[in-house]
């Protein structure tokens, strides 16, 4: 860990401004990912701006009938919120399938969205990684890649996005609200928050310098059956090999997002149009252009089989 300076932010705008003024600074909230990365000197911020004191820890109803989730709402609290459980069951289930109780107590909504890849080569500073050292190469290509992404990848990076929560939010069409260093705000559809790696895998989001997430807004509930199915080797406390989030309506239409297969929570609206044709048609569209390695090609089959089971479950539910 490199030595760093530290301040407690007094307001979101002040935090954003401070971050923009000090290149090398980072926001810290739960710290469940950032601190680990700092100990390994993968993240080397020179300055930490602690946003925990900002009053961003509330879940409020919006005039449109949705929910506005403060950036600092802990994963445990979000999963347990009665409104979330009633109207956005997908989100609650995704959250509870992730990490451990202790981590969920600490991890925040915004932090969960911005957690970094869990690629083992990214985690070892003696290995090549384009995320750590742009242009150095990707050791995972041709290496151990059983957990890695199959779609949306590039020759520079095949890391998958590790979040469960983000997959549910993608299916729910969440909007990310931010504050910019000049004090203005903007709204980013979650589909546009994460970037694909291309040849710049070190740039993971569309957030600008100093831009701070203050809330995530869920649109008005859309009803339907909500199922989040996470597939993993270990029954708990493991990242998804594949996860499938569905919201299925009575008329058979619905939404499908998947995790563990792409550098971002993965949803292809065109694929959803093919739901009446069944899991294979949806998967073909969803994973079109997939470029798996020998070690992770099984994910293509796994997504299809899991989706089929999930759709059957949705169809059989009263």
């Amino acid at each position: 860990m490199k030595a760093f300076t530290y301040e407690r932010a007094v307001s979101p705008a002040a935090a954003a401004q401070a971050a923009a003024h000090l290149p090398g600074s980072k926001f810290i909230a739960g710290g469940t990912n950032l601190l680990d990365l700092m100990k390994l000197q993968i993240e080397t911020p020179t300055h930490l701006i602690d946003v925990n004191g900002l009053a961003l820890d509330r879940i409020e109803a919006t005039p449109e009938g949705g929910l506005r989730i403060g950036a600092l709402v802990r994963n445990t609290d979000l999963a347990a919120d009665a409104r979330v459980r009633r109207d956005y069951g997908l989100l609650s289930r995704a959250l509870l399938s992730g990490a451990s109780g202790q981590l969920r107590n600490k991890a925040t909504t915004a932090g969960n969205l911005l957690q970094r890849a869990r690629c083992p080569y990214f985690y070892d500073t003696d290995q090549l990684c384009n995320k750590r050292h742009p242009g150095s190469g990707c050791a995972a290509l041709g290496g151990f890649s059983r957990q890695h992404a199959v779609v949306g990848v590039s020759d520079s990076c095949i890391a998958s996005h590790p979040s469960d929560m983000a997959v549910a939010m993608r299916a729910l069409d969440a909007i990310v609200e931010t504050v910019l260093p000049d004090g203005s705000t903007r709204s980013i559809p979650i589909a546009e928050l994460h970037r694909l790696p291309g040849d710049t895998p070190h740039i993971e989001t569309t957030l600008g310098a100093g831009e701070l997430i203050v809330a995530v807004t869920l649109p008005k509930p859309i009803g339907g059956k909500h199922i989040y199915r996470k597939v993993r080797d270990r029954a708990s406390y493991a990242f998804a090999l594949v996860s499938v989030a569905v919201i299925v309506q009575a008329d058979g239409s619905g939404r499908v997002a998947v995790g563990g297969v792409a550098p971002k929570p993965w949803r292809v609206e065109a694929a959803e149009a093919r739901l009446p044709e069944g899991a294979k048609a949806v998967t073909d569209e969803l994973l079109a252009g997939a470029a798996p390695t020998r070690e992770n090609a099984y994910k293509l089959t796994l997504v299809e089989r899991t989706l089929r089971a999930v759709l059957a479950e949705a169809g059989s539910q009263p």
Partner: protein
Amino acid sequence: MKFDSPATTNPIDQLKIVGKPTNRIDGPAKTTGTATYAYEWKHPDLKPAYGHVVGAGIAKGRIASIDLGDAQAYPGVLAIVTAENAGKLGKSKRNTAKLLGGPEIDHYHQAIAVVIAETFEQARAAAQLVRVEYIRAEGSFDLARSRDSAPDVQNAATGDFLAAFSDAPIQLDETYTTPDHSHAMMEPHASLAAWDGDKLVVWTSNQMIDWGRTDLAATLGIKKDKIQFISPYIGGGFGGKLFLRADVVLAALAARAAKRPVKVALTRPFIFNNTTHRPATIQRIRIGAGKDGKITAIGHETWSGDLPDGGPETAAEQSRLLYAGANRMMATRLALLDLPEGNAMRAPGEAPGLMALEIAIDEMAEKLEIDPIEFRILNDIQVDPEKPTRQFSQRQLVACLRQGAERFAWNKRNPRAGQIRDGEWLVGMGVAAAFRNNIPMKSAARVRVDNRGIVTVETDMTDIGTGSYTIIAQTAAEMMGVGLDMVTVSLGDSAFPVAAGSGGQWGANSSTAGVYAACVKLREALSHKMEFDPSDAVFADGTISAGNRRFTLAEAAGETGVVAEDIMEYGDLAKRYQQSTFGAHFVEVGVDTATAEIRIRRMLAVCAAGRILNPKTARSQVIGAMTMGAGAALMEELVVDKRVGFFVNHDLAGYEVPVHADIPHQDVIFLDETDPTSSPMKAKGVGELGICGVGAAIANAIYNATGVRVRDYPITLDKLLDQMPA
């Protein structure tokens, strides 16, 4: 005391305290956080400095240059030790690779420097400023590719295997693989070292006090009696702390360089590539049998790899003793690999060996259309198959299988695979035999009784979470006729007599036998003092008595107390009788029809392992071992990057071990058994027996559930998926 003829009746047989399910006497200290683990020790007088280890970033080659400038200039840095300035270092026989590497690099994350600073944070930050240039060399990292060049290092043959196998009407010839495994114990290796002139004290976490002390002396080139090794509490070892490791050597060198006590802990990623691991194996098994189900030929060849001068994973050893068959061929081959050092992990040999053999037995039973339990019983043997005049001291494998089958409702198993559905799950049952040898090891102890009647045991035996404190207290209480509340046990200090240590499941029987010997001596000393004939003296209820004379132990001990010390040594009983422990593992699994996720539903182990000194701690040992076996079957694999030559998944997020949710129900049964050839305790070991065979029982259950036979561990869903029903 020399144990050279089978035990007769002795005070342990009273079983007033020994054999009772007793809570750990060290439990309160551990649950209240007052048990001191290695990294928590404080030097009585001096403030320690902190060392942080720098590991090699390549698997094989040389250091071209090492630039310490920035690290040395970092605030708080006191010194940096490298091979260049450490002085001449030796290497003990029990270490394969050097614990401080450079300029030659033998494996990834081999320690090449330790940076010492005032604070841990400074040491860590400065360590990351050490800049190393390497000259990489070609290495061998792929066991499968090195297999054909691996020479035989152990062989055992009886009869004419090849002829008998080719004549057998029913044959099996299959190859199985097991991956490298990490001990992944909760407490990483850590040490605090302090010099006082030429004397060195090390507070550490080590399973074998005397080995560690001896090997540290050899490494530093100093006399053993100048070193004190202290390790009373150990947060798991599983074989990973059997040997001297880099934390100890670097703490000692760092303390010398910084001229004050230094603490060094290995970080979690270092556990995987810096320390030892269980080597991967490739195992070819051939079994020939008649149509009657009797094995006529059994061959087990195993390949593993290690660094130069390393040793093999002896995965064929159990196959010499477990089943009958007149024609036998076992071969152990060792390839040269430039991966980190392979060495013992819980049940070395048998754990991976039975993972393969017990699938092969299941496959053979299916070929023969015989129930796998009946097939094992049909081929049970009560003598050493290689030397039929030599008997097993106790062998209750058949009873383990029969009792387990009844308890587990084995008769509900459908012998045809892939038939049982429970909702979205395919359900199956599997069985495997468990086998692990008993190894009596000499062990010494000192026992004292003071003027309050308190009995104190001192021995350098270790408790690695196994329950040594408790069974030693039970032994001393039983022998001296006092309650557990009158016994104090001090362990893990080289100032105490040298015990067996914790390894090879020898610790329980051997260390308590050493305490037994010391207690016999103490009983004699007290008897003589009170002018009793030792053979008449009765020790009970805190008193010593004979005829109409009775004294409390406190009275007998007097003001000065009475102390006795002895060592238990062994004659040739272990040669005359084959001493082994046996068990049977039963597992039910569900396999998700859609995802092929495998989830254990219930597990049962039935063990026959001599006298069970404490059924509660023994049960915990077996449950822990079953859990570790489940990890080996379903998820644990150190993934080798064969281009770079290292274990890629070097943290606990990447190297998954089972969690509670993975195993909803576990049960353990101990058969009533005493083994008078093992020691006066008539006990053997269970801590490793519990892992032996578990993996295969799970693999066999998966096959029974799905009809898919996977021979390459771990059995993960991607290996089943293409063969699952649509």
